[in-house]
């Protein structure tokens, strides 16, 4: 317990979390502090490229053990399964209508790459190692949740999935960049990394700070405009659902015999909720669902929950359970 608290305190006072808090405070106070859209996009491209590349290098370095494929499968299964649980929970706990419940549920099956990065960064400072291919698992978990959610709605009968949408979802920029840079890192290995590490390793955490500043600003705006839509039962969902996701992630990690760090990352992926790929898909496929609801929940509640309390908790639990 002490260990959790001290890790949580360390975590809370890291520049990364404080940057998020600064952005949040600034936008709640209606400051005009803003990061230009193009720059926010550039930072997200940088982060995806760096994390993918480093994951690939780590795989090339340590070799692939047999669990890579199994891990990918487990990720896909988790991503497809969690929306069903989320949907049931939302319908019973919050009384959200079917359409909005499905849209929200899709977000919780998918993942947040920034939460993943924050997880790896806590692992790095704790000296816990993890499987480099977990970044590929993250990529694999982006999309299946969308299919589950659309299936939940199409049971109602009135919708079929537009053929084009599939290509868009599977080839969306973040998946392509994450997988692509993973492959580049794998192919070029430590030699490749040594050529560009002063770009993708050294400044990484600093860029992450500014990125989280922006996310704080955006989350604050979401809470300001969408906050009144989010009733207490939904806030509760935003904190309970990640715990459920993490539990499933823990199960996956244990069954696959992952390292302690890898298990933590499975928990983080299970716990985190999408706010990029899934919202875009929802605007196309379920335009009647209200973006204020799913974005506020995912970005305003679950994202800070994971960042502050969730990750230290997952680390502590995984350590206890795996004895790592």
């Amino acid at each position, binding site marked *: 317990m002490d260990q959790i608290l001290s890790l949580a305190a360390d975590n809370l006072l890291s520049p990364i979390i404080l940057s998020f808090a600064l952005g949040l405070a600034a936008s709640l106070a209606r400051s005009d502090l803003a990061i230009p859209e193009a720059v*926010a996009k550039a930072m997200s491209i940088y982060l995806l490229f760096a994390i993918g590349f480093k994951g690939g290098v780590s795989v090339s370095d340590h070799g692939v053990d047999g669990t890579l494929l199994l891990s990918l499968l487990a990720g896909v299964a988790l991503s497809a399964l969690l929306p069903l649980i989320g949907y049931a929970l939302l319908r019973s706990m919050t009384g959200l209508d079917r359409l909005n419940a499905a849209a929200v549920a899709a977000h919780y099956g998918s993942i947040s790459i920034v939460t993943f990065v924050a997880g790896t960064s806590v692992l790095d400072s704790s000296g816990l190692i993890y499987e480099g291919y977990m970044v590929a698992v993250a990529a694999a978990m982006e999309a299946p949740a969308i299919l589950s959610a659309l299936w939940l709605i199409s049971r109602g009968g009135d919708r079929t999935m537009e053929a*084009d949408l599939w290509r868009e979802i599977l080839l969306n920029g973040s998946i392509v960049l994450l997988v692509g840079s993973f492959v580049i890192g794998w192919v070029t290995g430590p030699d490749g990394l040594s050529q560009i590490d002063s770009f993708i390793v050294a400044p990484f955490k600093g860029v992450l700070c500014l990125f989280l500043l922006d996310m704080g600003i955006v989350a604050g705006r979401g809470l300001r*405009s969408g906050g009144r839509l989010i009733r207490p039962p939904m806030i509760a969902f935003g904190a309970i659902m990640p715990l459920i996701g993490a539990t499933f992630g823990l199960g996956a990690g244990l069954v696959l015999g992952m390292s302690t760090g890898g298990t933590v990352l499975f928990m983080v992926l299970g716990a985190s909720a999408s706010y990029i790929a899934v919202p*875009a898909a929802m605007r196309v496929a379920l*335009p009647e669902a209200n973006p*204020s609801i799913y974005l506020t929940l995912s970005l305003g509640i679950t994202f800070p929950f994971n960042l502050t309390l969730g990750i230290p908790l997952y680390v502590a639990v995984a350590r206890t359970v795996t004895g790592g």
Partner: protein
Amino acid sequence: MQTHDAKRVEITIEAVMQRRLTQALTEAGVTGYTILPVLGGSGRSGEWSRSGQVSRASGMVQVICIIRPDRLDALLEAAFAVVERHIGVVSVTDCQVMRAERF
């Protein structure tokens, strides 16, 4: 200068639907369009601004299409098939163009 009557159709629509809209316009025989970025806006679904989006998923664009008056109905039908379920606004203005053969 010799001018000809035409219609200027302005469609404000979510960026994620842009490709679908322009495809539908092209299929409806539209020979050209221009796309403007939108910074923000407000409507029944509330207020938004481009810098308040992480995903920039819910950003909007404005598609402007100048056409011969007799093609207006085909265009509007094609546009509505796409816009219908999505948020957005369509308006039509009378205008003059110089080289009517282009539209």
